[in-house]
């Protein structure tokens, strides 16, 4: 028997938590001498008030969906993959190689190949920590953190010494050929008569991300492998009893996780920048942790949380464009959102449960 109706748990609590975070954010904005109402207006209209705003919101959200899913899949096997950042960097390397060194006749084929390459590179980068965890017991939290740093060094080396076009001073690869240009939402929606902002970077990899959400959902909740991953995550001794190999699950879960993180490169590298730059991941791997935690490791939750963070990113960009509010305000708002919806949700839940219990008793 539950203490609360499901809708209260799923909708009401996050909503109240968000409102609390918003109130605190408003106080912070007041504290630095700005107008919170105007700021919120600007964020909402800037991020959600136009197809342009949506285009950016969804672009960021796409990144976060990939990294959030990556963290979530590992979480189901009780593995804490902090290495999404490095895996996404490697994914970018894979995408860049596919796009630069192979002439593609059409973007669809390039996208398929880029997906495969980014997943492969990301998975390889996750495989070593996974193997060390499974066979040597090396704590995956440390090794994945270390692999982030190593990935940064590797990417830096590749860009500065190998992939940088002659004569360019920018540590970035060449621009990808036009043939691998991924259609943006503008290009995708125009044929069906919907006019979407031309400027926004959201592109077809959004669909890849949504597809990834669905696939991960099916994988985790509908397949044997997902069943085994969850079982292993809940109880290692139970897994042994059921004939589930801890080694296999650790490896497979991390490979999938790394592949998902790597997939992010189809969005930011192939879809947006259309070249590989040094800090293309810009912390999305870490945001993925917050997204997965807030989304309770469920793909739909990850989807929603990714959009929330996309909104914060784009809303924040608008604030930065049109006001003098320092960009760090957005970081603070993110922190408050994570804090209230993620860590302090019991602060809302506990009193609510009492209310619902009293209501039920009253009815009975």
């Amino acid at each position, binding site marked *: 028997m539950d203490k609360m109706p499901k809708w209260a748990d799923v909708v009401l609590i996050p909503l109240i938590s968000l409102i609390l975070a918003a109130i605190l954010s408003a106080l912070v904005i007041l504290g630095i001498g700005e107008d919170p109402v105007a700021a919120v207006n600007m964020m909402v209209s800037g991020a959600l008030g136009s197809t342009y705003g949506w285009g950016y919101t969804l672009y960021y959200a796409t990144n976060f969906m990939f990294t959030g899913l990556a963290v979530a899949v590992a979480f189901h096997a009780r593995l804490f993959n902090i290495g999404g950042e490095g895996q996404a960097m490697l994914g970018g390397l894979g995408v860049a190689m596919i796009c630069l060194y192979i002439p593609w006749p059409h973007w669809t084929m390039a996208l398929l190949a880029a997906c495969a390459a980014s997943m492969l590179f990301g998975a390889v980068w996750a495989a070593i920590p996974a193997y060390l965890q499974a066979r040597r017991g090396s704590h995956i939290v440390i090794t994945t953190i270390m692999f982030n740093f190593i990935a940064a060094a590797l990417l*830096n080396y590749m860009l500065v010494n190998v992939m*940088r076009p002659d*004569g360019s001073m*920018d*540590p*970035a690869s060449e621009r990808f050929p036009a043939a691998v240009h991924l259609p943006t939402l503008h290009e995708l929606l125009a044929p069906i008569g919907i006019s979407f902002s031309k*400027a926004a970077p959201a592109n077809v990899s959004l669909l890849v991300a949504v597809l990834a959400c669905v696939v991960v959902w099916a994988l985790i909740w509908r397949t044997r492998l997902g069943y085994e991953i969850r079982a292993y995550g809940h109880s290692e001794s139970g897994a042994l009893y059921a004939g589930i190999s801890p080694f296999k699950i650790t490896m497979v879960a991390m490979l999938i996780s790394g592949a998902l993180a790597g997939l992010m490169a189809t969005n930011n590298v192939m879809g947006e920048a259309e070249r590989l*730059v040094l*800090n293309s991941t810009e912390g999305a791997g870490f945001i993925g942790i917050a997204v997965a935690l807030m989304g309770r490791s469920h793909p739909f939750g990850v989807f929603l949380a990714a959009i929330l963070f996309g909104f914060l990113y784009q809303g924040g960009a608008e604030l930065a464009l049109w006001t003098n509010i320092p960009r760090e305000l957005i970081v603070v708002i993110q922190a408050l959102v994570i804090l209230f919806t993620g860590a302090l949700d019991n602060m809302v839940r506990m009193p609510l449960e009492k209310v619902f219990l009293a209501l039920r008793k009253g009815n009975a």
Partner: protein
Amino acid sequence: EPALIFDLGGKFDKSFNEAAFNGAQRWAEETGGSFREIELQSEAQREQALRRFAEAGANPVITMGFAMADPLSAVAADYPDTKFVAVDVTWLDAPNIRQIGFAEHEGSYLVGMMAAMASKSGTVGFVGGMDIPLIRHFGCGYAQGVKAVNPDVKIVANMTGTTPAAWNDPVKGSELTKAQISQGADVVYAAAGGTGVGVLQTAADEGILSIGVDSNQNHLHPGKVLTSMLKRVDVAVYDAMKAGENLETGVFNMGLAEEGVGYALDDNNAALISGEMKAAVDQARQDIIDGKLNVVSYYENDSCPALKF
């Protein structure tokens, strides 16, 4: 109304972006005008900020840093009536961009000479930020200046790191400086953004000389900073804003001749610079301007004659 787009380092990086901000500020104070600005937070915002400012009618739109080149090349054509200014970019092909490149190697050459002359130990240091070509470009000019004074002077060169954190790790800057001091360096040139703050600080603490970069950083530790390699981004921005919509486009190289780079001399470091030093450096400056002296740019073939990276 002009707009100014700072690079990821942020407008208060005590060097490159801050110089731009100072230029804009000067323009605003002098003319009473106002300008829009944004500190970029992510790669995707580069194009976004360009378009948003252009659409909002900002003119000119001034961008900082070579990383804007790529987005600019994608955006500029869509807004033919808007003038763009690209600092640190010289290779684009677009009619409505004013591209400004600085001959950092020339300025670095001069401070390199000063370092070699000020050094008593015969060893000087260079602390770069993230290991990218631009920073090597600085280091290369510096090394040539050092070697020009005395080919026997040893140069210790270090980069802070390979991630963007390399621009903001003063602790590492400190440690690198200490390491260089222990290898004998008694003048250290910092081209490392926020990390440089740690370099200058440690140099001051340990009683050696340092050289600032981009902005005039002599005042940070009066009497302890030998000089600063000036990159007159402030002037470039000021000029661009002043010219407004009538801005001249094209590629502009700001070298010593154009007073785009130079070294800082003020009350804070006057006592450190002997007349002899000043004479030598000014001579070299003139020779470079006259073409008698050629400072090799790292970009020419991705290598440096005076220093191995």
